[in-house]
């Protein structure tokens, strides 16, 4: 059981909470406390919008242990509109649908579980942006 390791980063998993550097204004996700741009301390929270576009993607057929039941599934690196890249699954999407540059938005979904009786792990995935009518 790894309950604490998931609990510890719930703000990141549920709400894409990263950081903004008070020195150079760089937006940082995942949070890392030391700004990768200027090297100064950066601990100010920053909530990302969850909107971005697909930087790259692929579909997995050979999943690692613990994810076999989900296969096949599509993963992507998403470039958030604030700048950082984030790795996540794409959801609500056909295998042939994704393309580089496709606009996507964050949703909260089940990422997996720790066995039949284990905890459910929720977190961010990305789906194609739903058009408002």
């Amino acid at each position: 059981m790894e309950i604490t390791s998931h609990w510890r980063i719930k703000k990141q998993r549920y709400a894409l909470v990263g950081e903004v550097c008070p020195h150079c204004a760089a937006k940082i996700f995942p949070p890392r406390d030391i700004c990768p741009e200027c090297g100064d301390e950066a601990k100010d929270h920053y909530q990302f919008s969850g909107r971005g576009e697909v930087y790259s993607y692929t579909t997995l057929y050979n999943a690692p242990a613990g994810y076999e039941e989900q296969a096949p599934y599509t993963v992507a690196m998403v470039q958030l509109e604030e700048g950082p890249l984030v790795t996540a699954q794409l959801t609500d999407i056909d295998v042939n649908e994704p393309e580089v540059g496709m606009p996507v938005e964050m949703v909260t979904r089940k990422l997996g579980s720790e066995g039949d009786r284990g905890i459910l792990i929720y977190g961010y995935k990305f789906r194609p942006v739903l058009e408002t009518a």
Partner: protein
Amino acid sequence: MMANKNKPKNDVFIIGVGMTPVGEHWDRSLRELALEAMTTAREETGAMRPEAVYVANMLAPALSRQSHLGALLADFSGMRGIEAVTIEAAGASGGMALRQAYLALASGMVNTALVVGVEKITERVTAEVEAALITSSDADYESIHGLTQTALAAMLMRRYEFEFNVPEYAFAGFSITAHANGAKNPKAMFRRPIKLETYQRAAILSDPINMFDAAPMADGAAAIFLARGDVLPSNPPFPPVRIDASATAVSAVAVHDRPNPLSFAAAEKAARIAFDRAKINQDQIDFFELHDRYSIFAALSLEAAGFAAPGEGWKLAESGAIALNGQIPICTFGGSKARGDTGGATGVYQAVEAALQLQGRASEIQVADARIGLIQSLGGIGSTATTHILSTVETL
């Protein structure tokens, strides 16, 4: 006899090598594989006993429930009492173990060392191996989303194709060259050449990576015996190979944390340091053992080491420049693609293969007049890179 000026006492030499065939060794254990490679390397020195053993391994704790390989292998090989330790830097463990041994010898604190890389992959089914391999990536922000190393490499390959507008099958030459070389390496896992049509028809693993873009993971062990210049045996059966430069660097573990995911920054830095230390440039390299776990890695490694501009590494495969008789031969024993990728042992296989080239012992896959070789191992998706430059010492 050797002239003193040609063997400064602080120089570090490879004086013995050994390796097992790479493959599915169902009948042999981790320690037995390691022992075979260690024994062969020692026999080439006239059975010298090293002062220290550096073990390169990444997966034994996960796949064999066995850590503490330094003590395990020193004991199993009959060398209780000596210094021994395991070095782990994911797929770069082998290169990193060589680096640590080099530091120990160059410092003068250790005179002789045995570096052994060993990996026992086939104890487990593929899903478990994938789960073990992905532990070298970011657990909280990559692996949790069900990523595999192949998926991460596939995303790099797709983005590379997108940004640099490369034609279809641009990477085929890497696989075809590796298999052409591996066909002539008796230790290789795959010993049959492949045709372009074979590559084109291959099943997709994780688009756009197909079966021939990805190296198979398999069991194997390789070892090299290192000695300082001042303790070289006087009449070695094989010419010693000198380590002219040793360098290593890291970049972000997570691919998404890198300013430019299509640049192997660690490899670039390690290569630049190595070239500076050896005081040579790319034109003087006779062959390059790079870490082709995926064909996209081969392209990015060639670019990082300065043999091609960003976005143009694939052209060296298409033009034949990477072939044995080309301008910059790579993966001369088949590389990870055809020899088989032995995880943390890979860097030691590369060192063995480079030494055999420089000693003129590569028979059918000998690079003509090979005098200076470059080897580079990658850990994770290029997060750690180790680079070594090896050379023959003409007047020995």
